[in-house]
């Protein structure tokens, strides 16, 4: 019985293939029960998200199990299995473990580090548990995958850096102000992106919020939406004196905020830092504002540049995460394989010990005059022979299990020494 995973994801299959396999939870329960009932899979978990459909299982013949599982999945939606085959991948044993760990840790995601996947894997696992298709092997694999995902999240920064413009702006604000709670924000203009950035700032505790718009009614409307205060458009400068962050996204054709104005304001603010997030095109804030001390001005291109850098940083962190996962796989396999071969080693020892004891008893029965020293010597001799014989197979078993070949070796040992059925 080998651990395997097979399926397709956003890299191997285009969306029109993936969407054909979309199933709801009820259907998924049905599929799980069907494939489990077919007997091809000892255990099964089906993970179906919009970016991947995968079957995790334990089977004697992974290829056959894969065909069975996907035949059932296809039947649900009337898709031809043949159309799917070219998009499917299968990983067995160690590779399956690696795949499970990488998926749960969001390293295999379209957007590396996106947080939803772990929840989706947990849901899939829970669903399979409720259908009683999870056995010890998949239980160990998934609980370990959750632990690894958590470790990856805390020990690397794959999920740390914003990959959207509006979140990148929030992150920059945090690099300037440390905490956003109690920082005042002024939103100028009614652009969608500006509103989104303001919303993110509010979520991080920014308060109070001021809204300015050329149309007074629109300003009031947006102020209500953000739980803020509308300020008259011609009092922008006054409002800017009081706030820490200014988000602009108007449709104005020329900059609304020039360097001279900001310079004057900075004097009145006693030089508290001021952060401009200028999402408008054409820009609302003169670029040269950034040269003033304590003023940071990011336009849309600057923010995109930050997002690009963040992406690169995430990928760098993903490499570290892969290293971490390799170490976790080694630990997992060592534990698992020891657990796999230990029963065999124990029964092998018991078997030889039983032979030794009975043979010694027979021999001693034929030697009634033997001195205690002779008896002791025979005991010692037999024990030494047994240990010498056992040494090599036990070493080999442990090694082979660590190399992922434990199962075939345990079967061989069971066969050779007549140990009865291996589990």
């Amino acid at each position: 019985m080998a651990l395997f995973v097979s399926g397709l994801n956003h890299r191997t299959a285009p969306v029109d293939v993936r969407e054909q396999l979309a199933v709801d939870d009820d259907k998924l329960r049905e599929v799980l029960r069907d494939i489990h009932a077919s007997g091809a899979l000892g255990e099964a978990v089906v993970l179906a998200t919009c970016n991947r459909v995968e079957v995790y299982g334990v089977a004697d013949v992974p290829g056959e199990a894969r065909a069975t599982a996907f035949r059932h999945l296809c039947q649900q939606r009337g898709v031809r299995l043949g159309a799917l085959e070219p998009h499917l991948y299968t990983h067995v044993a160690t590779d399956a473990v690696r795949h499970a760990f990488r998926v749960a840790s969001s390293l295999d995601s379209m957007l590396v580090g996106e947080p939803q996947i772990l929840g989706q894997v947990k849901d899939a696992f829970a669903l399979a548990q409720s259908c009683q298709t999870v056995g010890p092997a998949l239980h160990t694999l998934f609980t370990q995958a959750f632990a690894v995902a958590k470790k990856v999240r805390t020990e690397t920064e794959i999920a740390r850096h914003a990959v959207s413009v509006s979140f990148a702006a929030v992150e920059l604000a945090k690099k300037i102000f440390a905490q956003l709670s109690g920082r005042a924000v002024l939103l100028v203009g009614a652009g969608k992106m500006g509103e989104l950035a303001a919303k993110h700032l509010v979520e991080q505790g920014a308060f109070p919020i001021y809204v300015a718009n050329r149309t007074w009614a629109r300003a009031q409307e947006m102020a209500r939406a953000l739980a803020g205060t509308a300020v008259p458009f011609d009092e922008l400068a006054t409002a800017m004196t009081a706030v820490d962050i200014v988000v602009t996204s108007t449709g104005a054709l020329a900059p609304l905020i020039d360097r001279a104005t900001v310079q004057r304001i900075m004097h009145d603010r006693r030089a508290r830092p001021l952060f401009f997030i200028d999402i408008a095109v054409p820009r609302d804030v003169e670029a040269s504002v950034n040269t003033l001390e304590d003023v940071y001005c990011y336009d849309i291109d600057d923010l995109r540049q930050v997002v690009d850098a963040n992406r690169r940083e995430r990928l760098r962190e993903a490499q570290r995460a892969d290293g971490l996962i390799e170490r976790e796989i080694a630990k997992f396999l060592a534990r698992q394989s020891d657990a796999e071969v230990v029963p065999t080693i124990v029964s092998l020892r018991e078997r030889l010990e039983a032979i030794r004891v009975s043979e010694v008893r027979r021999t001693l029965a034929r030697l009634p005059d033997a001195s205690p020293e002779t008896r002791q010597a025979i005991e010692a001799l037999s024990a030494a022979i047994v240990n010498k014989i056992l040494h090599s197979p036990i070493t080999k078993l442990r090694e082979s299990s660590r190399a992922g070949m434990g199962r075939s070796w345990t079967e061989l040992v069971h066969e050779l020494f007549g140990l009865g059925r291996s589990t």
Partner: protein
Amino acid sequence: MHPVLFNIALVGYICATGLALAYLIQRDELVHRLQSAATLGAWACHTIGLLAFAIESGRPPFGTLPAAISVAVWVIVLLALWAERQYQLRVLPAFVLPIVVVLSLKSVAARPTVEDMGPTLGGAWVWVHIALALIGIAAFVLNFAGAIMYLLQERQLKAKRPGTFYYRLPALDTLDRLSYRTLALGFPFLTTGLILGAMWAQVAWGSIFTADPMAIFSFVAWIIYAGTLAGRAAGGWHGRRAAYFAVFGFVALVLTLGAGLFLPGRHGAS
């Protein structure tokens, strides 16, 4: 006994410095843990070494300037360990430990021995003068580290090209608060230390500045720090300007120690 301990401590600080710099480049949990362990281990050795030295000589372990610098290093590491936890500043050791190593090398180069103790050293006030000045110096080392980190982060934010420092260093506001706190902590100690020194000089040598280079440089450093503190408290100074002054102050402080170590004078270690 204690020279061995000082050497172990120095090796520990050097290892910790390497690890701290490695952590700055490659964020790795294991590297950080090793660095913490190396720092703590070195500091523990250092503590025992200083205690052994004090017991052996029968007086505080800062009777000569090199010995005093060794004690300053001890206080710096203690403060850095506190600040690292207080401000969640895991990169702080990368900026403090190199200074620690340079100072330790200096104090080891002229390893303190009991015989070095000058005959003029006497009276509790002198010991208090030295102790206070040392705590002040330690706080200003942290102040300098905070300023350097502020300047690096500010540059990144202005340049709009996020690099390693953007990701590793904390927010400007945090760094500015660290600078202010350490300035506010160090200044009273330095001031009281200098006043005691001046009073004692007046009594013992008959003049405050007996052409002693260390006294003169320390007065320059004091003026810079006093100006920065006044600027911060009353003039709304902060950020880049305050950071530049922290750097100036630290340069003056280094010159002060250098003068004490290498120029002849009343503090002279020659």
